[in-house]
């Protein structure tokens, strides 16, 4: 789609895009290019000499069991965050779409966690689940569950999943609610007249019609789990215990900033860039589908 009416000027359009382009060049393209460059080089411990090593950094990366484990941790984590987040929000949105009384109040009370920073969400839940003083840990101990996420990898994973899902529910909820409200009432009514109960109507009409929203949210939630949960992890488990919550983004940060392994961290950055590109393409394809619906 193009505009029929346009203005003419030899310099004005360049001046108008200049600030945006300058910032993208200096802070996006230049660093990204450097990440690619460093990923083919090896630096000595003092940062004095730098040497071209070809694909050695990548070969080392994919031979490193720690890196492959991090892939697995990321996959488990993002699948858990995406599926539980989507399921819980779909349930809440379906219920909120049904009720007449108090709909706005429910909506307001469900969307505020969107405003909480991931790192704070992590701190809040870490406090509730703190092994010796947390109120939830106390209840769990009463029930005979020995809770200590500082030592138990699975429990640490569960903690960061809960904190991330809690933060993301409001986002999913709003999109599901908008999706539900755009389903024509006549379809639901026709099914009701034919004798289909609420459960049957949900699975045969509502859920299929919501599938574009669900796919879209699946991609958004995976992106969220991959990148934006950095704060949750840094404020709580910091990748531990062991490597049990060391997702790819956290590993890039840890290896690059804390362990100062420039080549390895850059190679990881490049791999992550490839993942982001794939996810962005997926996101745009699903959005196109959504428009066609």
């Amino acid at each position, binding site marked *: 789609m193009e*505009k029929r*009416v*346009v*203005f*003419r000027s030899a310099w*004005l359009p360049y001046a*108008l895009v200049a*600030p*945006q382009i300058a*910032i*993208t060049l*200096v802070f*996006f*393209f*230049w660093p990204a290019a*450097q*990440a690619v460059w*460093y990923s083919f080089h090896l630096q000595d411990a003092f940062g004095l000499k730098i040497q071209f090593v070809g694909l050695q950094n990548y070969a080392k990366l994919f031979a490193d069991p720690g890196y492959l484990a991090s892939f697995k941790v990321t996959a488990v984590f993002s699948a858990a965050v995406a599926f539980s987040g989507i399921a819980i929000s779909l*349930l*809440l949105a379906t219920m*909120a779409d*049904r*009720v007449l009384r108090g709909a706005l109040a429910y909506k*307001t009370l*469900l*969307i*505020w966690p*969107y*405003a*909480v*920073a*991931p*790192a*704070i969400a992590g*701190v*809040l*839940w870490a*406090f*509730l689940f*703190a092994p*010796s*003083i947390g*109120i939830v840990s106390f*209840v769990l101990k009463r029930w005979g569950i020995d809770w200590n996420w500082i030592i138990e990898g699975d429990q640490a994973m569960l903690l960061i999943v809960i904190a991330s899902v*809690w933060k993301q*529910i409001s986002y999913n909820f709003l999109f599901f609610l908008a999706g539900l409200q755009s389903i024509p009432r006549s379809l*639901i*009514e026709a099914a009701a007249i034919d004798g289909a109960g609420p459960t049957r109507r949900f699975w045969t009409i509502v859920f299929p019609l919501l599938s574009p929203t669900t796919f*879209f949210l699946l991609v*958004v939630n995976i992106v969220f789990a991959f990148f934006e949960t*950095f*704060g949750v992890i*840094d*404020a709580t488990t910091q990748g531990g215990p062991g490597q049990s919550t060391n997702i790819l983004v956290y590993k*890039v940060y840890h290896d*690059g900033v804390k362990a100062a392994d*420039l080549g390895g961290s850059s190679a990881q*950055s490049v791999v992550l*860039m490839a993942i982001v590109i794939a996810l*962005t393409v997926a996101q745009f394809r699903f959005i196109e589908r959504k428009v066609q619906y």
Partner: protein
Amino acid sequence: MVENRPWVTFFSHAVLVLGVLTIAFPLYVTFIASTHTLEAIMQAPMPLLPGDRFVENFTQVLTAGSTKGSKAAAAQMLVNSLVMALVIPLGKTVISIISAFAIVYFRFPLRMFFFWMIFVTLMLPVEVRIIPTFKVISDLGMLNSYAGLTIPLIASATATFLFRQFFMTVPDELAEAARVDGAGPMRFFRDVLLPLSKTTMAALFVIQFIYGWNQYLWPLLITTDESMYTTVIGIKRMIVGGDAANEWNLIMATAMLAMLPPALVVVLMQKWFVKGLVETEK
């Protein structure tokens, strides 16, 4: 409502109330913890009713921070967060609206090239270019400065798309009429497009306010000076060790302060917030 089924309606309310309570529970416990002494919280189970230390705890964090961890005063951190939360949306709005204007209303060589350049930034989040970006900032001498905290984050593909999308819906007759009346492009931009874009700008502002306020990785990388910490970073720096070593009452008071402004923005400007959220994702 299609039919009257009191039990189903009751069930819906029950699920919603349960959901609302579960979601609010961490907030409630945070508030309670911020009103007690550390000794009271350290007993298992901690009290579940408000204590009497509300004023003391909040005064302590606002003026002096924690005593064991970071000693940055929350008042200064709130100012820093506010600077990020206001400058980032303002900057994003300004540079995005003018670049969208150029891309939609002008034909010039490299137009699509610039458009794609802006688009590709979507695929380069800070997380994937941490170290080189840090180097660029330190080479430019922008560590520990407001410029460093805000400028690199104001480039925005989503905001540019949003304005481009909106400009496409503005009828061509308006631009034509402006041209016939002898108005130049900037006059048209100021007197016609800007007033029409108000709702889009408001929606974008609410979303980006929260984005700016909640930044984590970026300030973590480039602020080492306590006086430049944002509130979210400050909380992280107050956590010094295992659960018993932290001053949870003060951490939770700071957490309350960090959550309150963006939560108020979401709740009070709900209409703009929902509009912004749904539209920036298109």
